[in-house]
């Protein structure tokens, strides 16, 4: 463990030096959420329209921002003022926010420590380097500004529990993670199938049902703790609508390199060729490069893609993995399956950000240290993504 502190020390030093670097609108988003959760009561968190950056993460993240906002007034009360703090970028705000990301990264370090505990020294060092010193994570979290280190720490923690055979703990932590950021739900089918098969099946009917009951209760308890207060306020529909803004269009303003890009290109090429051949093709009403625009069909030739279509495609892509997980639930393959699940989600998902690539590159680091083949794949993947 003392050796890990050396890696943590170096990483923290680099992050501290990057404090004055560029930060994107995500900085203002999180600052606004600090102000929002501090100044307004729970019932107005998801309905407030003071700023265009409305809360679109699940409730646990809102509680997390609330917790952080306890410390902000000690540094500078204007950070958490709802109206005066809008677009506030004074050094105090920058230092405070950057510090919260640096501190929350310790969750990631703890998870990496747990993962490396039972490995040989070379593999352990490599995992520490690939995860704790991941350049993608540093760029996205400490420059662009997000809290991915903390969330990925929870994911890796859950994977480490599963790899040690502690299924209940693993499932519990994953449920907590889902209530922090619902984007991680892409791996939920893998978890569901694996836990069902490994934890509940094959121990006899009574024991199996008991395990299922225990796991179900744990997960439901987590969801109740998160969404309970909002169900009580009758706001659950509003919350779900905020969390799943499907009106944002198939592709983000900056296209993520996924399957739908090919689909769009194919559509354009076909339209062009068919026009040349003499067919009359109407020009589409909406555009892809326009960014966040509504639901009108931007496709000229190929059928419209709806959120449901993408959902089905993701499930189809996942199915080989799910079948394998059902037939042969091996503990050591869990990180590979989770990485694969997020890759499918990235390729076929609706409104995917490039940043979502972090979700499969980081768990894949665990796989990468297992064999040279995997290491080569990891290298290509991470370079390609950068």
């Amino acid at each position: 463990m003392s050796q890990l502190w050396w890696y943590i020390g170096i990483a923290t030093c680099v992050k501290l030096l990057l404090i004055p670097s560029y930060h994107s609108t995500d900085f203002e988003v999180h600052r606004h959420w600090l102000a929002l959760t501090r100044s307004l009561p729970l019932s107005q968190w998801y309905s407030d329209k003071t700023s265009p950056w409305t809360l679109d993460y699940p409730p646990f993240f809102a509680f997390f921002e609330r917790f952080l906002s306890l410390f902000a007034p000690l540094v500078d009360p204007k950070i958490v003022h709802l109206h005066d703090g809008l677009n506030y970028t004074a050094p105090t705000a920058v230092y405070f926010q950057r510090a919260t990301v640096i501190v929350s990264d310790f969750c990631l370090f703890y998870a990496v420590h747990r993962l490396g505990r039972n490995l040989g020294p070379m593999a352990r060092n490599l995992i520490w380097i690939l995860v704790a010193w991941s350049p993608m994570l540093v760029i996205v979290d400490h420059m662009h500004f997000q809290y991915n280190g903390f969330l990925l720490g929870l994911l890796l923690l859950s994977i480490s529990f599963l790899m040690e055979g502690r299924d209940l703990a693993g499932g519990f932590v994953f449920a907590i993670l889902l209530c922090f950021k619902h984007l991680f739900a892409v791996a939920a089918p893998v978890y569901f199938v694996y836990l069902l098969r490994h934890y509940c099946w094959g121990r006899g009917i009574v024991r199996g049902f008991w395990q299922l009951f225990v796991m179900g209760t744990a997960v439901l308890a987590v969801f109740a703790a998160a969404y309970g207060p909002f169900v009580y306020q009758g706001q659950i529909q509003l919350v779900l609508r905020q969390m799943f803004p499907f009106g944002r269009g198939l592709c983000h303003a900056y296209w993520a390199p996924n399957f739908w890009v090919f689909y769009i290109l194919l559509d354009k090429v076909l339209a062009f060729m068919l026009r040349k051949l003499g067919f009359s093709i109407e020009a589409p009403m909406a555009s892809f490069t326009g960014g966040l625009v509504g639901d009108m069909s931007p496709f000229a030739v190929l059928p419209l893609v709806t959120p449901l279509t993408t959902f089905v495609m993701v499930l189809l892509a996942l199915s080989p993995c799910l079948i394998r997980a059902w037939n042969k639930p091996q503990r050591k393959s869990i990180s590979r399956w989770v990485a694969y699940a997020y890759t499918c989600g990235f390729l076929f998902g609706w409104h995917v950000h490039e940043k979502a690539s972090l979700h499969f590159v980081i768990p894949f680091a665990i796989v990468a240290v297992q064999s040279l083949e995997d290491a080569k794949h990891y290298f290509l993947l991470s370079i390609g993504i950068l």
Partner: protein
Amino acid sequence: MEKKKKRKVEAADAMPKSSEANWQWLVHRGTRPVFLVVSLFGLLIRAAVSLHSYSGAGNPPKFGDFEAQRHWMEITLNLPPKDWYTNSTSNDLSYWGLDYPPLTAYQSYFHGLFLRFFDPDSVALFTSRGYETYLGKLLMRWTVLSSDALVFFPAVFYFLYVYYYGRKGRNTCDIAWHIAMLLINPAMILIDHGHFQYNCISLGFTVGAVAAIFSHKDLVASALFCLALNHKQMSAYYAPAFFAHLLGKCLRRRNPILEVYKLGLVVLGTFAIVWWPYLHSSDAILRVVSRLAPFERGIYEDYVANFWCASSILIKWKRLFMTQSLKLLSLIATVSTFLPSMIQQIRAPSGKGFLYSMLNTSLSFYLFSFQVHEKSILLPLLPASLLARDEPFLYKWLTHFALLSMFPLLHRDGLTLPYIVLYALFILFFNTMPGSKDLEVGKSSAAFRYLIGVALLCSFSLHIVYLTVTPPKKYPFLFEAMMMMLCFVQFVLLAIYSNWKQWRLSEDFTKSSKEKKLL
């Protein structure tokens, strides 16, 4: 239980010594990946420090060193070389006139071309004074980063290659640690990439000269050192060491006069090439020289940890003596303190002795010379870093107090956070030294360790006091003075120790040559 025990035993066997374990993942692939990884990390740290503030940021009318360098680019770009050092309507020497030798001017010219290509307004004559924009700062930082990468880094690799080539019992972990010590040098990074200067160029040429000496290419060494001298006249702090070592080597050759003649030719030739635009008249040469040695500024400025400033508490030098007598006094003091080191090298020149000699002469100059700046501590730090493998404690101690002596300057520039972070990085990398358990301090007496503890405690508390407490009105520079006193004492102790070590080397030399004679 048995499985756990087995695993623990296996783990203990497989685990290398803790201090080397940090390098193991890198080192098992050989030296080239080590060079690559550490230098890339060094560049990353330099780029990250560049994000922070610089000297004189947002501080009209004079600003600071950043504006001075930008102004020199403006002057060299827009005026012909003969006007660079002359006072005229276009070149007002009182607003940051050039006070470095011509190589700095040529370097400013090239960097000025680069700046003009991307942002002409930043180097337009007159109108660009006090020019402070994001693009301007970015371009300026790029000039330092590129100079560092093109001059200092290759010189370091050349040195390490020559130093460790054929060395018995060398260990890739040693080399890795030494690279980290040379490239992650907190003082140099903070001054060059934070405060804003181009020490990397003159120090890079110096390291190149040292490497050439180690590979027995004396002519190349003198040419490189002359280039360093022509970039910053402070490189003259090393001149006695180079002179003594090369003279000592010449005297041992078959035809000393010829060797000296060859060296002299190379030196004169290099100077002639660099000073070419000014060689047409002695007037022009003198004009440049008068800019290089601004004696009218007094024996010391601000608070620097040298003899004159420290003893000025008791003896008010500026009030008691004229500048002429002070010049003579400082010359006598400096020469008498570096003379023993020079004599040792002339009598018994050796590679390691040469490095000690560089350290000793630069410390003598720092402590006793005229018009020394706090930034000049970078000059003794360089040979200490080259010697880091043999004198790790000396290097660590010198770095610590060098940083302390520059702390007020860096704090004024708004570089407190990079200061803390770079110091932390230095300690983290220092502690990965292979065989750190055999460090001298561990073997030393309790009294020594107690003194070390006291000194460290004093320096840490001075940092905190300086940041938090306002000094009394009667003595507004009380804390700077206290820091300088502490640093001065440590530097004197280090100078004494290093001189002693250099003389010890010559004893070993004569001992071994006596043994050879007996055999």
